[in-house]
């Protein structure tokens, strides 16, 4: 059971490593859009 758990754990690690790049670009694009929106609304509302 221990061996199985270790094997599953290492598989999860490999899986996480494999998807780290995809996750990074997903987060990057999401942040750019959210940041752009926040700045745009803030700029408009900050006008006198």
């Amino acid at each position, binding site marked *: 059971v221990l061996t199985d758990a270790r094997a599953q754990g290492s598989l999860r690690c490999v899986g996480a490593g494999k998807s780290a790049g995809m996750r990074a670009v997903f987060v990057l694009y999401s942040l750019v859009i959210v940041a752009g*929106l926040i700045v745009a609304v803030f700029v*408009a509302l900050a006008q006198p």
Partner: protein
Amino acid sequence: MRTFVRENGLSIFFAAIFAVTLTAQSFAGQHTYNAEQAEHGGATVSWWEYIASPDYWGAVMENWQSEFLQFSLFIGATVWLVQKGSNESKNLQDAGRESDEKQRMGRHASAESPLWARARGLKAGIYENSLLLTMVAIFFATWLAQSLNHWRVFNQDQRAHREEAVSWGRYLLNPDFWEKTLQNWQSEFLAVGTMAVFTIYLRQRGSPESKPVGAPHDETGSSG
């Protein structure tokens, strides 16, 4: 690092050219703005002042909203509407939401399927439409941001011409808002329609946006 770049080259490429063109737009926009200010005897602004202005963010949001509208409509319309021979369409008999089995949902999901694809009820309902919901939400948010910034610019012009400022609600009914909006929408709709139609007869070897070079013209929904 090399693996990261190779596996995510498409996203990195577009992120890089996005950053370059957004920056270039800010410099070009500042020059245009200052030229107009000089012409009307107004004060010029620094680059920092310009990128914190509604003039710049109105222009940025104006283009963002139309792009997200374009993709939202394309994602939604291609569920139900088909175009015979187009790479951008699915097969004619597949029009509609398709079966759970084909969508690999619920009991047809595999161990590798996303967790929410294996769920039922509300979770499954949200996840099966998550792409369209997100794109539509970004469209409305960017359209709102465009309207707020262009409203501020409009009122600055009104004051410069000693005319009365208008409320945001009144600005939404103003031709200035709709001209800026519709000029972007029409170009997006033409471009999407063109992609759907041109992929019937034209090819780009190696691109998933095209059918394989040797695919028959009436073959629908195959990627090269």
